[in-house]
């Protein structure tokens, strides 16, 4: 008897017992679909984060104060605009560098008062952060030097203030200072912000200092000429700063690559844990198959006897039951795969996250379910094959 015959016989038996077959497959269906769902969402999330990181810029870095009660930061340690200019002049691996201060203020416009996030920086920041403008322009070095009261606002702030009508040229009052809107930022789709971008207002840092009452620069952000030069750019910047301020250990740095690695590590661990759980459900599914196959062997003792009387060898009977459990788990695997696709698409739609279904994952789920079919089908199949024909024929 060949393999194809075995499949036909297995198929006949599966179709003849539809309900039992479905229940048998249930474990495998759940196992495979959860493996697929988890991995699709996991890989989707990972690739979304990576994409986000890429758009953020893989060669970005930042420098900030190393706050330490035993070694406090003083005015002498504060970053200056000259520091920034010197770093850019000296280091060949720093492509752009800009000071950046974040501040929360309340603004008034057309009788409304709302809290916004001010981002005070220089004209170079637009290249570092890769900002895209929908309309207007970013402020220039001239605007900065002249302490012009100009602002670039984010889409959500524009919506809130001007009800989506054209914002360029409008006035925004920060305290009693009028700022003229000269640019509008494009919407940034972000996994982290869940589709909502924040109310941002970019203004020249010199303008900011003119009313903030402090000349402290809180952060410096830069961009290395390439991803491989990020560490060198950080080294240069830190040593220039320490030399200029004649201090040490007052500053520290971050870089986007490091952030990306740690995010990937976390998502990797999460994916691994969930995959392990999904793997356990596959195992349980396999035990379910073994259970039903054992019942099926007992129930079909007489059939086994008849087949043996008609000339079936032990290997034929063994093959028949093994193929049956293989076909069951294979079908379960296929159904589970489509179910997994569907569920991951639905979840992805709900939490606005892309899904990635990799061929490796499909192949793995299939191999695993086939493996489950063979491993857990083997014992019942052996039991069927070695039945005594006379006793099997007499079985009621």
């Amino acid at each position, binding site marked *: 008897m*060949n393999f194809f015959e075995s499949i036909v*016989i297995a198929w006949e038996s599966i179709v*003849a017992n539809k309900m039992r077959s479905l229940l048998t497959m249930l474990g495998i269906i759940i196992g495979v679909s959860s493996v697929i769902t988890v991995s699709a969402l996991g890989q989707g999330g990972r690739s979304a984060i990576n994409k986000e990181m890429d758009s953020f810029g893989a060669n970005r870095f930042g420098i900030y104060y190393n706050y330490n009660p035993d070694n406090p930061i003083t005015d002498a340690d504060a970053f200056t605009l000259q520091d920034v200019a010197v770093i850019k002049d000296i280091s060949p691996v720093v492509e752009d560098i800009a000071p950046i201060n974040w501040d929360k203020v309340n603004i008034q416009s057309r009788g409304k008062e709302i809290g916004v996030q001010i981002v005070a920086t220089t004209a170079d920041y637009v290249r570092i952060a890769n900002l895209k403008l929908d309309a207007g322009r970013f402020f220039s070095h001239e605007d900065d030097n002249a302490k012009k009261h100009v602002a670039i606002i984010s889409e959500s702030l524009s919506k809130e203030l001007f009800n989506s009508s054209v914002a360029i040229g409008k006035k925004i009052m920060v305290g009693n200072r009028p700022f003229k809107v000269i640019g509008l930022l494009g919407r940034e789709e972000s996994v982290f912000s869940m589709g909502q971008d924040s109310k941002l207002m970019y203004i020249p840092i010199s303008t900011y200092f003119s009313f903030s009452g402090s000349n402290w620069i809180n952060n410096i952000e830069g961009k290395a000429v390439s991803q491989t030069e990020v560490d060198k750019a950080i080294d240069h910047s830190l040593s220039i700063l320490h030399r200029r301020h004649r201090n040490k250990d007052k500053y520290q740095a971050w870089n986007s690559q490091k952030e990306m690695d740690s995010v990937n590590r976390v998502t990797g661990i999460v994916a691994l844990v969930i995959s392990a759980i999904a793997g356990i459900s596959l195992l349980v599914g396999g035990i379910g198959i073994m259970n039903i196959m054992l019942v099926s062997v007992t129930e079909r003792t007489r059939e086994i*006897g008849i087949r*043996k*009387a008609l000339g*079936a060898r032990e290997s034929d009977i063994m093959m028949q039951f093994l193929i049956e459990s293989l076909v069951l788990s294979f079908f379960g695997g296929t159904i589970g795969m489509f179910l997994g696709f569907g569920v991951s698409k639905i979840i992805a739609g709900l939490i606005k996250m892309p899904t990635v279904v990799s061929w490796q994952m499909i192949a793995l789920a299939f191999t695993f379910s086939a493996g489950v079919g063979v491993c857990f089908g083997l014992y019942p199949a052996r039991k069927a094959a070695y039945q005594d*024909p006379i006793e099997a024929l007499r079985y009621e």
Partner: protein
Amino acid sequence: MILVKNMTKLYKNGQNEVAALKEVDLHVKEGEFVAIMGPSGSGKSTLMNIIGCLDKPSAGEYFLDGKPISQLDSRRLAYVRNKKIGFIFQNINLLPRINSLRNVEIPMIYAGVLPNERRKKAMEALESVGLGDRWYHKPNELSGGQKQRVAIARALVNSPGIILADEPTGNLDSKSGAEIMEIFANLHRAGTTIILVTHEKKVARYAQKVVTFLDGRKVEEISSELL
């Protein structure tokens, strides 16, 4: 063709050993039609199972076509059951969930006959027992007599030299029983060796020779004309 020598079969029944067959000798020649009679428990079915290579004797020898069966392994025994012997059971033993054609195809599946030829032969076999219009009927859609005819088609389809029938008419009404026996008579005329177990004298009369068993022993072997 079939030679049984001094055969004994013991069954363990708790502590006791019960002899189902005691020192039985039997010789069935090629083309012969033999009926085995006797009350239930007399060892008829045990003998049939041993002749059919489903069971092994405790002592004694069994030669089929001159070859000792006791030396065959399970694989060869399966081959003998498949190619040389056709079984017909009292309780018919069709597989309930598949149609007549598929039931008749089973022995050919294990004989390695290719699907197209298998289908053709199964159709011919069903036609030869008068069921050319019942190919796609499942067993529960057939009458008892029709079911037994499907079983006969199944037993014949690999053209075995020997047919072993264990009370084939036992569960049938007399009309169906007579139709079945006509098929056996035709098979006998065509040269098939037949061994048939029965309670009924009118069934045994179709045979040439009637062997009677009692308590595991062969007690009589006569020509059917003497019945």
